[in-house]
């Protein structure tokens, strides 16, 4: 057991920290809102930040930091730990980075795709030219992915795709869909789903914005009308899509903004020290003290879970159950942290980002709204608990 970073890792972290502080636009923190564990305030999905994000991402790529976890064969360092350190530092600084291309698509491609696909996409992902969005959810297939209806029908060397996707984060600012479609309408869903790459600019793809309750356009509805995609864009085997998506989940769980929770805690502690309520510094208010200690404890647990999963992946183990626990813990923590923050801020917690009086540029109020998205997105808390109970503890399915 050794719970510290190595000297080399600490040096690397410092390098990333310095890089991040240097390369982020001045006053970046005051331009964006971002709430840990929420799906509605991620800056890379916002149109207005695309230029900054692309520029930042190019610089990251220049450092080789977008593919640290990839095998050396594909230009990476095979270090999940270093990738996690980058992710941790970037998210502490709310940097416009991340995205599923490098964290989910690339590792999945490496594991199951044809060499041809790898050659086409990995370099583009590495330098930020190929952005992806996850095309899993449909209006009637939320928690129940098996209700998937989007079809892909063979036609010569192509598939013709028809259907509708929803909650498509960043579809409007990326280049490709990482799509789950049904290739065999007669088989049950888990034997008929296939993973396929669909270019956003293919004919028949219509992307319609959805504005979320934080007043941010991050989601979309996407319609596929007779969209023709070459068969070579199938990822892994046909009808193995469910398996391939599950495989990708272990990576997905680590794309969370792991540093952003502690950042909020640090900021709240500072706020409590510097602000007065009822004539006394908030930091002397027993409720505030206790609430912040409770958050510090939960963040400590979350971080333990996070780095433990990183270490497992680093050793080549698959944190399946751990990934469910992690997702459950960090999204529920997101809600608790938001509630704690609005409680501490009192009426100031209600102020929106355009208000000059708003502490933290309005992040807390918007974060309160955004925090509800964590436990309902990407596998609800209830789904995670059922996974823990059945796959983890071996309880009988319903």
């Amino acid at each position: 057991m050794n719970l510290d970073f190595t000297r080399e890792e600490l040096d690397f972290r410092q390098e990333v920290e310095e890089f991040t502080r240097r390369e982020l636009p001045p006053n970046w923190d005051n331009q964006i809102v971002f709430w840990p564990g929420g799906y509605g305030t991620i800056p890379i999905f916002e149109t207005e930040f695309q230029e900054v994000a692309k520029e930042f991402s190019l610089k990251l790529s220049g450092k080789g930091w977008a593919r640290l976890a990839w095998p050396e064969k594909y230009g990476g360092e095979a270090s999940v730990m270093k990738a996690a350190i980058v992710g941790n530092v970037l998210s502490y600084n709310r940097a416009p980075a991340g995205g599923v291309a490098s964290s989910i698509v690339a590792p999945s491609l490496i594991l199951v795709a044809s060499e041809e696909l790898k050659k086409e996409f990995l370099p583009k992902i590495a330098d930020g030219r190929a952005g992806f969005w996850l095309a899993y959810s449909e209006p009637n297939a939320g928690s129940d992915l098996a209700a998937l209806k989007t079809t892909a029908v063979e036609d010569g060397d192509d598939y013709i795709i028809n259907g509708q996707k929803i909650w498509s984060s960043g579809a409007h600012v990326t280049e490709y869909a990482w799509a789950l479609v049904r290739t065999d309408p007669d088989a049950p869903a888990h034997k008929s789903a296939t993973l396929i790459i669909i270019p956003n600019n293919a004919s028949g793809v219509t992307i319609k914005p959805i504005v979320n309750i934080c007043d941010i356009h991050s989601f979309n509805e996407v319609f596929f009308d007779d969209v023709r995609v070459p068969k070579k864009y199938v990822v892994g085997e046909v009808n193995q899509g469910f398996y391939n998506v599950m495989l990708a989940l272990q990576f997905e769980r680590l794309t969370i903004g792991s540093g952003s929770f502690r950042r909020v805690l640090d900021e709240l502690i500072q706020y409590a020290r510097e602000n007065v309520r009822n004539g006394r510094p908030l930091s002397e208010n027993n409720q505030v003290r206790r609430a912040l200690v409770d958050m510090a404890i939960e963040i400590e647990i979350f971080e333990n879970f996070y780095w433990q999963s990183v270490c497992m992946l680093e050793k080549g183990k698959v944190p399946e159950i751990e990934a469910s626990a992690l997702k459950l813990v960090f999204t529920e923590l997101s809600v608790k942290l938001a509630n704690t923050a609005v409680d501490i801020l009192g009426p100031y917690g209600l102020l929106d980002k355009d208000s000059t009086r708003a502490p933290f540029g309005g992040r807390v109020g918007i974060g309160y709204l955004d925090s509800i998205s964590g436990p309902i997105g990407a596998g609800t808390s209830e789904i995670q608990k059922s996974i823990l109970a059945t796959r983890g503890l071996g309880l009988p399915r319903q």
Partner: protein
Amino acid sequence: MDFELNEDQRILQKSARDFLKKECPKDLVRNLADTDPGHSTELWQKIAALGWMGLLVPENYDGIGWSFVEQAVLLEEMGYALCPAPFISTTILGAQTLLMSGNEDQKRGILPNIVAGDLILTMALTESDGGCEPSALNLMAVREGDKWVLNGIKLFVPDALTADYILCVARTGDNSSPEKGLTIFLVKTKTKGVNIAPLKTISKDKQYEINFNNVCLKPENIIGPVAGAWPAINAIINMAGLARAAETVGVMRAVLEMTVAYAKERVQFGRPIGSFQAIQHYLADMWVDILGARSLVMKAAWKLATGRPSDKATGMAKIMVGKAGRKTTTTGHRIFGAISFTMEHDLHLYHRRSLANDPTLGNSDFHYEQIAAGLEL
């Protein structure tokens, strides 16, 4: 002992529900939320015509002279409909303060106009501290000859831009204890030196910052005793806090209704999600919370209505409903899932309102301490 509403109250409830269903559709709520001052004169006049503004005002000032029980019934319906009107500001912060502390001239001059829907009032209480304890109230009014001059900033003043008059709480001296030295001034919004700026909130309610810059007032602008207003202010905080709680009960009821309906319809894994135990238990908890919340609100309202000591009861209602309201709308989102995370869906309107009603007009520290004192702790 009788927990049921009487016939008059049931008629009020029914007519308010019907009226608001028709006259306060969600489109109107959304439109007003997105504009400033976010007030519909038309809706306000209709409400006035129904007598709502005079519900708590005695008949000799043109009101109906009903009690807080009826007011709570009405407010639950207004919360249910998310009715966007400066109603609590005018009828509680304004009219109740006047009723409690104003002299006969002041009452006669203003109350009938409130009842008629011609005047909107509010109170400027909170300052940079964010709370409403006496120690947090420090805006100064200085006597100069026969005038009083106000200087300072008030925050989180509800509905200030719509208001004709602001009741401004100011410190006029006697620093022997924070409770002492507070005075209420009646300030015309149009007075020179009164600058009002919106505080944009995520709750989309209408709160403002007011900068009082050498605002000159005459002695007749004083409502109640000089340097002795705290007891009235304290009572108003409790009444208004209770009003917010009553509104939140309506918000909760609306959320439960819409969520139950959705849980019956929405199918996942081949069956309505409302048949899953986890969903059922969430909804049962919501329901029990609503029943509990309403019971506290109605008890406090009844105590106010019958002149019993009520600070403990209003504090209990404010604290419990503040928490339960937030929990209920959050759980609603959890059950609805992603669809409710969109601006298009109505649920977030309720979620915002339940948050807005919690930390204002007596935050939890204020009410906890008040209840603890009531328990002789």
